[in-house]
């Protein structure tokens, strides 16, 4: 038996809390914008745009030279960060047009095909924005825990979960059907849980570093964050609360929806935080 000791796994320390916050706010904003377009909720679109804009200062803080960030437009052919920065600007323009048209729609009660083309384009770019956040880390095989085809899907589903979480606070203003919103919330949480399970299984069956990441998630130092924080408090609890609100005798108490929203947001944040913490390089061999 050959014992190999000493050459230990190295954790990534390039991305930290600012990157986590940037992708968290981007996920909330883009997810909320997409759902608001689906539900025709103009205020939701505006708040979604504000959340997306909140990503920018965190990205700037993360960069060593914030004043040079304009240079990031230069290489969209190969760099996902470059694509993301361009997408962000396109989204801001489309979102503003969409919001302005939305208010016109409220007053004039007039829907032209052009309105929908802008909305559809804005939704496509919003999905792209969520994807760019994940592809920036998932594109390269250097960190096996990130190099997963499931990661972009997880970012999209967590983005929609976060968007739903904010809608739980706003839906009384939107004249939305709470039953429909609750169903959406339950579906995205269920998708999250399935994708998380698939992701963990994929890590467990992959390279040495990926297996170590999977071990850390369920048996290592991050298990409280993953099992208690993300799965139980961030997913199962909100699902129970949403179901409780939907099938409660009284349709009045929105407190259950709001609590579910807070817990979902916490789960979404922890998901990104944990993902940064399980970033381990393969041992050179």
């Amino acid at each position, binding site marked *: 038996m050959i014992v190999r000791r000493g050459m230990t796994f190295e954790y990534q320390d390039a*991305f930290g809390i600012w990157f986590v916050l940037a992708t968290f706010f981007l996920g909330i904003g883009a997810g909320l914008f997409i759902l608001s377009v689906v539900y025709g909720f103009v205020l939701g679109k505006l708040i979604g745009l504000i959340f997306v804009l909140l990503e920018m200062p965190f990205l700037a803080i*993360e960069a*060593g030279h914030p004043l040079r960030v304009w240079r990031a437009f230069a290489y969209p052919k190969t760099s996902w960060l470059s694509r993301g920065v361009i997408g962000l600007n396109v989204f801001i323009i489309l979102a503003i047009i969409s919001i302005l048209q939305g208010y016109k729609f409220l007053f004039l009660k007039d829907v032209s095909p052009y309105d929908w083309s802008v909305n559809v384009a804005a939704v496509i770019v919003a999905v792209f924005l969520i994807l760019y956040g994940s592809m920036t880390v998932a594109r*390269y095989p250097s*960190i096996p825990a990130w190099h997963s085809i499931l990661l972009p899907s997880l970012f999209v589903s967590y983005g929609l979960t976060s968007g739903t979480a904010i809608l739980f606070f706003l839906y009384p203003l939107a004249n939305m059907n709470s039953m429909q919103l609750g169903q959406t919330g339950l579906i995205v949480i269920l998708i999250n849980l399935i994708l998380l399970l698939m992701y963990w299984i994929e890590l467990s069956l992959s390279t040495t570093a990926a297996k170590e990441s999977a071990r850390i998630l369920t048996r290592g130092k991050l298990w409280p964050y993953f099992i208690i924080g993300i799965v139980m408090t961030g997913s199962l609890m909100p699902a129970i609360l949403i179901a409780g609100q939907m099938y409660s005798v009284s349709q009045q108490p929105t407190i259950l929806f709001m609590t579910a929203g807070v817990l979902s947001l916490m789960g979404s944040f922890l998901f990104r935080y944990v993902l940064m913490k399980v970033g381990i390089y393969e041992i050179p061999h």
Partner: protein
Amino acid sequence: MGLYGMVIDLKKCIGCEACVIACKMENATPPGISWCRILREERGTFPHVRIFSLPAACNHCADAPCEKACPTGATYRNGDGIILIESSKCIGCRTCMTACPYNVRYLMKKEVSYFSPQPLNPYEIMGYAQHETGTVQKCTFCAHRLEEGMKPACVELCPAEARYFGDLDDPESDVSKMVKERHVYQLLQEMGTDPHVYYLSS
């Protein structure tokens, strides 16, 4: 114009870290940053145990993920196949650091003295002038020395002569002969980066 590469003979390497010191002296990297480092591993079972040393630095890959990940073009390949960073273009976004499978890129956060809290000494002031804070840095194969016809500092100072450096495109060079004729391997070949640093197995 050529294609510079390096071969490291792990049978000769004694893990003395002279290459690490040579690199630090030549490039004046601040505390916590070492472009060249030695990874160690204990191999075997008692009493037949030995320490395996693996010198690691930038591999100047043919298909460098750091180059593709860079959103500004700050990371580029020069005419000699060396991956370099143009500090004035680097925004310090660190995507290249996560894209590199060998974890050999470093962000210079601030100028720190080795003798902190004392201020920077004259050597540090002079040395740090070549680095820009807030940007990423890494091994350059001592490109400034190559321009003057010298070998990289780690190659020059290796007491075991475990490092070979030369033009991989020149069929008469030591490195290209070794790559062709001996059983060399590259680190993390499965990543598909095709490094220009080869290792002779121990």
